[in-house]
């Protein structure tokens, strides 16, 4: 009955030629979407709700009040402490990534507002060497945590990262300890930290700050986990269950508070902050800050 089989090279659907840049195809359902429409929908597919991966500045524009984001520590530059080289020098890899993304490294940090409420934010960028955490990412996040503690302003970290950056060896690993140590200080001061986990959040990023929030919010279907799926498969020698390491799986197992559509993210975070850190206490916080000084 092999005439029912789909023959290679023969396609029943006529391939649509997409004019460059104007249209975009949904990676999940194949729907052809007008790019501007997708943007106005915060890169969420109108048909199947698929959440496209977006870069840090796009995410910033979706999550925070318009034009409220003021970046800090933008100029911290990565280096190549191990003089690491595989097929390519790490220093060249960095230069290429910087050129391609316009960023210095894989995270953007700053101060912003959400429905008028002030927050300190760190938004990771998967397009910069897979959002991997090297020294600069660790340092910028550590400084954002410090700022959140010093200014007594809630912290939001949006993760999208493959984990620690291999090319900085143990120095990358230590960024897990650094950011977690800073979060212990923040937690001791009683300042809220909301961790937003987007697709993908894995490895060392999950095994440090992403899993240390007071509230964990994930985007639908985001890949979230510790070990890579290929490694797990190799280790246990069997296939992984459907939905393994997806946001819904983590919620089922108790590690995610809520799964929130990107289009409702701002309202949800705002609601949480209003309850945990009401605006009216701002005056009191100012006093606390002054007392400390």
């Amino acid at each position, binding site marked *: 009955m092999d005439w029912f089989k789909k023959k290679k090279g023969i396609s029943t659907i006529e391939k649509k030629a997409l004019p460059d840049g104007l249209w975009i195809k949904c990676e999940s359902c194949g729907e052809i979407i007008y790019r501007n429409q997708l943007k106005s929908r915060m890169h969420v597919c109108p048909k199947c709700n698929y959440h496209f991966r977006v870069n840090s500045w796009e995410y910033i524009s979706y999550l925070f009040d318009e034009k409220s984001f003021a970046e800090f520590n933008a100029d911290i530059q990565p280096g190549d402490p*191990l003089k690491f080289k595989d097929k390519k020098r790490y220093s060249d890899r960095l230069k290429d990534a910087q050129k391609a993304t316009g960023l210095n490294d894989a995270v953007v940090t700053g101060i912003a507002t959400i429905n008028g409420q002030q927050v300190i934010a760190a938004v990771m960028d998967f397009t910069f060497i897979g959002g991997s955490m090297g020294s600069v990412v660790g340092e910028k996040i550590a400084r954002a945590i410090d700022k959140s503690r010093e200014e007594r302003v809630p912290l939001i970290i949006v993760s999208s990262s493959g984990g620690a950056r291999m090319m*900085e*060896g143990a120095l990358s690993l230590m960024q897990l300890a650094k950011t977690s*140590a800073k979060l212990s*200080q923040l937690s001791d001061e009683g300042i809220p930290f909301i961790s937003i986990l987007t697709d993908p959040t894995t490895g060392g990023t*999950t095994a*440090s700050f992403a899993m240390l929030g007071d509230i964990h919010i994930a985007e639908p279907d985001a890949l979230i986990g510790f070990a890579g799926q290929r490694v797990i498969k190799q280790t246990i020698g069997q296939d992984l269950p459907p939905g393994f390491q997806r946001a819904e799986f983590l919620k089922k197992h108790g590690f995610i508070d809520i799964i929130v559509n990107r289009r409702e993210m701002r309202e949800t975070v705002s609601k949480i902050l209003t309850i945990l850190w009401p605006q009216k206490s701002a005056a009191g916080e100012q006093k606390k800050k002054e007392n400390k000084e």
Partner: protein
Amino acid sequence: MRKNFKMILEFEKPIIELEKKITEMEDYARDTGLDLSEDIKRLSRKAQSLQKEIYSKLTPWQRVQLARHPDRPYTLDYIKYIVTDFLELHGDRYFADDPAIIAGIGMINGERVAIVGHQKGRDVKENLFRNFGMAHPEGYRKARRVMNLAAKFDLPIISFLDTPGAYPGIGAEERGQAEAIAKNLLEMSHLPVPIIIAIIGEGASGGALGIGVGDVILMMENCWYSVISPEGCAAILWRDNAKAPQAAEVMKLTASDLLELNIIDKIIKEPQGGAHWDHEQSASILKKHLLEEIHVLKQLDVKELLQKRVEKFSQMGYWVDPEPKKRSKRKSK
């Protein structure tokens, strides 16, 4: 000196050959009554200088092999020689007891201490039980529980690191491997008692760091510690596990590399030939350093201790900051 090794590494072979020859001569001399003492002395000297020569220029990959040597002392071996009245405590009080991590309390020269550490097995059966030293979330949570106990009763904590990684499995992910490790990093950053980390074998990534945050980080001479195993690194970079030796070269994972990168505080000398040649001596060298560190750290008040601990990790990394703030250095070392 131990002579019945489970495994002999390629570069150890000439030494072992010589040692064998010496033993044979000793036997022969005893049986025949001939005086071979001069020759034996000469050969012993030669064996020693050969060992010194080989060990003075070990490659990173050879160090990795030594760190994994199946005859190397493990956490329980160090405990046997260092800790008296050791009482192992079991279970995370939530789900299970994880034999890949040891936790307990005991005494070192009159000092009350809590111990945590990864535990490998020495043969197949033991390794199946210990899961090759690869912990599940329960292991990290057990360690955390016992470290909290230590904080409550003011016991310094010693943590032995020796793992090929946290276990990558379905159950481990379901029960929150990442969360278990992350929580430990946060907790260990502010536990109000001294924490001394001793890397005694393999320090693979988050699985090692999960019990690796402390005030002082000691590293035995022939160990490795990095963000990924050389095999994992090779698989990603060259799509070939067999290139692990090359990966080890570029990863800067040996004790002397890490001292230079400011990640560890001190390299602990091993007996000549490596820790597997003499467990007792390895333990006694380490014990001396552990006691020293405990005494120094106990002098600090808690506030200072914790401030220094956070500071220690804050400095780690390499970045260039064109606008230095008053507290941050222009370039970290």
